[in-house]
């Protein structure tokens, strides 16, 4: 049985030093590097002491799966292989995690939907798998452009769900994500989402931790459930499910099991706040108008705020970093002064606005929009226009642009 503390300072087979994660993320020198989001995923995984990566490398949305294959060839990943489909990949991830491995995978859009059955299974089995979700359109006609609708489906799986704005968020959160999701009181899978294409295919300056430092390895003996054993739940449940026994005890057990998954999501709150420095970031929340957003809609919101400032309209910003656990109290506090709350989103249904409406008092303050979807970009001008329209100010229509 490995003791994590005794491993700190020793080297792995690639010569990387197992480093205290807090020191590695907060005190170690950083090197600015110009990378695509996909390359950033690779660099984070190089430092993540991953045992297994399983890929369904449908390339258009992200090259990460293929790039991590290179890491395997270089000896940074314990094992790496391709599944027959996204469903197979997620099932194989479960197998590896049941066996006590630190597991990584990536998915996007239709692949996420195809594999969906596995995600509540991962949570129920308390498997701390990390899955990168580089969001893209999920409906026909297909699109490889960003559309965050798939996040709405992940919110009730019992997984932790974080939404990165930038490639820098991505790099840091992949590494921190393992630490949060492997805490014994949490021990849940993490869906680390970004708006695909915008983050994965564009280059940005990202400050990387030293490549010769890596996370301490996963210690499966701290798991809240036993390692894989065909006679014990949760594996036993799959061949002898409680639901097959029709009585109060069976149902009560299953109900308690579900409650325990959501209790674990709650417990992740303290660790997520510690590692991400809060579930939300805020700017100028004393303003009458506040934009609340997640993912790259935050960047567009920030630019819209700058444009509005030029016209004398002051706006605040709330960047929602964690969607599960949901920052209920934080959002309530950050929007308590707001007369208008705008929620720009890259999806057709406005799932984030619905969550915020259910969170804040006087929910008529929440303006669900602007929305774009199907891969459309969100020019900051349309956020400006939405705000000015709500305030009764004169604005122009983007529809005529380019005509």
């Amino acid at each position, binding site marked *: 049985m490995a003791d994590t503390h005794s491993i700190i300072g020793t080297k792995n087979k690639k010569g990387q030093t197992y480093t205290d994660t807090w020191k590695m993320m907060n005190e170690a020198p950083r090197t600015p590097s110009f990378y695509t989001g996909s390359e950033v995923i690779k660099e984070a995984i190089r430092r993540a002491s991953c045992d297994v990566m399983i890929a369904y490398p449908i390339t258009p949305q992200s090259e990460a799966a293929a790039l991590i294959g290179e890491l395997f060839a270089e000896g940074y990943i314990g094992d790496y292989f391709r599944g027959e489909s996204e469903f197979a990949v997620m099932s194989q991830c479960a197998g590896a995690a049941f066996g006590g491995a630190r597991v990584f995978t990536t998915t996007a859009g239709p692949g996420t939907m195809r594999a969906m059955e596995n995600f509540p299974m991962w949570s129920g089995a308390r498997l701390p798998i990390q899955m990168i979700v580089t969001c893209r359109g999920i409906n026909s006609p297909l699109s490889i452009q960003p559309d965050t609708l798939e996040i709405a489906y992940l919110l009730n799986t019992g997984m932790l769900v974080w939404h990165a704005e930038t490639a820098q968020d991505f790099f840091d959160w992949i590494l921190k994500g393992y630490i949060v999701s492997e805490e014994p009181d949490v021990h849940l899978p993490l869906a680390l989402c970004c708006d695909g294409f915008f983050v994965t295919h564009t280059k940005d300056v990202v400050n990387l931790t030293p490549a010769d430092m890596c996370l301490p390895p996963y210690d499966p003996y701290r798991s809240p459930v036993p390692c894989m054993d065909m*006679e014990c739940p949760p594996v*036993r449940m799959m061949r002898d499910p409680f639901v097959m026994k029709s009585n109060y005890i069976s149902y009560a057990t299953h109900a308690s099991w579900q409650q325990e998954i959501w209790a674990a999501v*709650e417990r992740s709150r303290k660790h997520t706040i510690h590692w991400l420095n809060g579930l939300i970031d805020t700017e100028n929340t004393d303003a009458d108008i506040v934009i609340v957003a997640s993912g790259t809609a935050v960047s567009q919101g920030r630019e819209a705020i700058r444009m509005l400032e030029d016209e004398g309209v002051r706006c605040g910003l709330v960047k929602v970093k964690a969607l599960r656990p949901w920052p209920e109290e934080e959002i309530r506090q950050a929007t308590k002064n707001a007369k208008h709350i705008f929620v720009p989103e890259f999806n057709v249904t406005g799932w984030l606005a619905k969550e915020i409406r259910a969170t804040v008092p006087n929910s008529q303050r929440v303006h669900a929009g602007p929305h774009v979807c199907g891969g459309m970009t969100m020019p900051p001008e349309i956020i400006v226009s939405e705000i000015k329209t709500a305030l009764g100010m004169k604005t122009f229509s983007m529809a005529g642009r380019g005509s």
Partner: protein
Amino acid sequence: MSDYRVLPGPEHFLPPAAASMGIRLPNPGEAHINGVITSEDKAYEEAARQFLMAKVPTIFPGPLVLWAWNEKAAKKATAVRHLFNTLKECVQPGQKPMLIPMPDYRPKYPKINPEVEINPNHPNLTIWHNKIDCCMFIGVHCHQANLSLKIIRGGTSCYTIAMCAQAGHEDAMLSFRDASVEKIMRLADTVKRLKGTVQPRLTSAKNGASS
């Protein structure tokens, strides 16, 4: 801070997980009593007092201390046995300390003999059958311990204590964290020190463990 308190039941047809009611786990060096963070010192006193008050104080050792899978586990098992022997020495006539194992987590209903073992999927059967009014979980994997503790709170009036090797349990009425041989021995020492100072509760509670 949450107004919810983790108290002996029977609480509800389906009681909530305490974490979902805003109860937070203690940090290292702390414990909780009824969901309120407290010092470990206070928790030792309260756990010992509850053991000495109970008609049937019971220890439920789980697989992590029942099997000698490493040196630490074997030492913990010896400490648990010492705690049980101390309890037997310190209780008064009419009190009946028990040591009932949770050897594994397989659903065994309806075949389980709840008199001789406890199972996380239906722990209330063992509580009811043996009229247990105070119990301590030790060496049970956290997920299964939380499952059990919540089901016990839902359907019985048993006072639950968790001696957890990890981060603790909100679903117990009293929880230690980072359990070690030293902590188990210190609890035994506290029981010994309080011997004769606590009035045992020799009748079952109103909606009691025997219901």
